[in-house]
């Protein structure tokens, strides 16, 4: 459920009490409601579900944990891409 994808805020617009902005997803741009992320500004990444941003991506947190994951991945590659890293995995 809950298909939400990350996009970059290109500009923010406030019309009365409503807050919206242009958000870029890959190569397309769409107007997204930013009412739930008052802290999001141009350049931020937000997660968008049904045309509403539901969170602002915590880029520092993402970078921190991803670094660890990348190290894991690099180590596994070093062991040899041809090796099966899960020797007792279920047959496919």
């Amino acid at each position, binding site marked *: *459920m*809950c*298909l*939400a*994808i*990350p996009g*970059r805020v290109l500009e923010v617009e406030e019309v009365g009490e*409503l807050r919206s902005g242009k958000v870029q*997803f*890959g190569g397309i741009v769409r107007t997204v*409601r930013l*009412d*739930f*992320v*008052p802290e999001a500004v141009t350049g931020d*990444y937000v*997660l968008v*579900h*049904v*045309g*509403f941003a*539901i*969170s602002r*991506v*915590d*880029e520092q*947190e*993402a970078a921190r*944990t*991803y670094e660890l*994951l*990348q190290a*894991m*991945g*690099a*180590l*596994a*590659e070093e062991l040899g*891409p041809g090796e099966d*890293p*899960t*020797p*007792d*995995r*279920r047959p*496919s």
Partner: protein
Amino acid sequence: MKYLDEYRDGAIARALAAEIASLATRPWVLMEICGGQTHTIMRYGIDELLPRGIELVHGPGCPVCVTPLETIDKAIALAMRPDVTLVSYGDMLRVPGSHSDLLRAKAQGADVRIAYSPTEALKVARANPQRNVVFLAIGFETTAPANAMAAWEARREGLTNFTMLVSHVLVPPAIRALLASPQNRIQGFIAPGHVCTVVGYQEYEDLSREFNLPMVVGGFEPVDLLESILMLVKQLEAGKACVENQYARSVTYAGNLPAQRILAEVFEVADQKWRGIGEISQSGLKFREEYAPFDANRVFDLDLIATEEPAECISALVLQGLRKPTDCPAFGVRCTPEAPLGAPMVSAEGACAAYYHYRRHKECE
């Protein structure tokens, strides 16, 4: 695409799988709650990467699948009225009601339109003042705030031709019902990351404590799910039972406060029927009294058609994770995506549809 592609990295995924394999000393039964997570698991073959002992059971986190039959029947009845324009998320169009579905209703001349966002339903209402626009507003806690905003805007503007047929379901009561069942085999949960983005994960801490089960709030990409499984396995191997947040780039403990505020303003908690499961108390949302003029249930006089669930559909057991879709005798034979007997075969992230689309060939071998 940033914050998407990195979490589909093959090397990282395989490394996580290897780590899980090296840590697991005994079999574990885990459930991913959210249909979107099920979809990813099937589409990327994540269960193929896991060691034999880790079993993934697919939970009821598919709001499309659990929308009550009556709601579908009501939506179809409304759509067939000549004065009504029914606007719906795409997912709902093929879900079978008792006798028909919205797509068939459209084929018979009903004015049924797809919207990606509730704001588009409002646009249709504003552009067509002579039509009664009904928006079929389904979803979990993730979608409810956006649906709530639509009602809030409609009320503020004084729209007189816009109503919503609401079916919102809440996740924690469903988990509680699952865990309370004597047939429960689940030892650890991957909690739904986008639901928790909105509501935070305090309720999951309560559940984890009450039932002494580990839970990890997980994202939706292959790396997210594998990392979540790794975190669960680590806890289980160490005999721990607490809530961890894998999806910290989006989820915070308190969740999204502005979203929670609009939810509280527009909706209140109510008992809710779950298709295939039955009624779960305090597991849904209904409009507050002041929003009655926007509640299609109250505005329209809807004679309830007798709802009939096909006897053969075992979605009740599938949604509770007690059976796999392939255990169902009708799966792929009498129940297919073109001729579904129940909702999990129709919804793109229903367990049955996911199995059918992505993994059917396993049974061919």
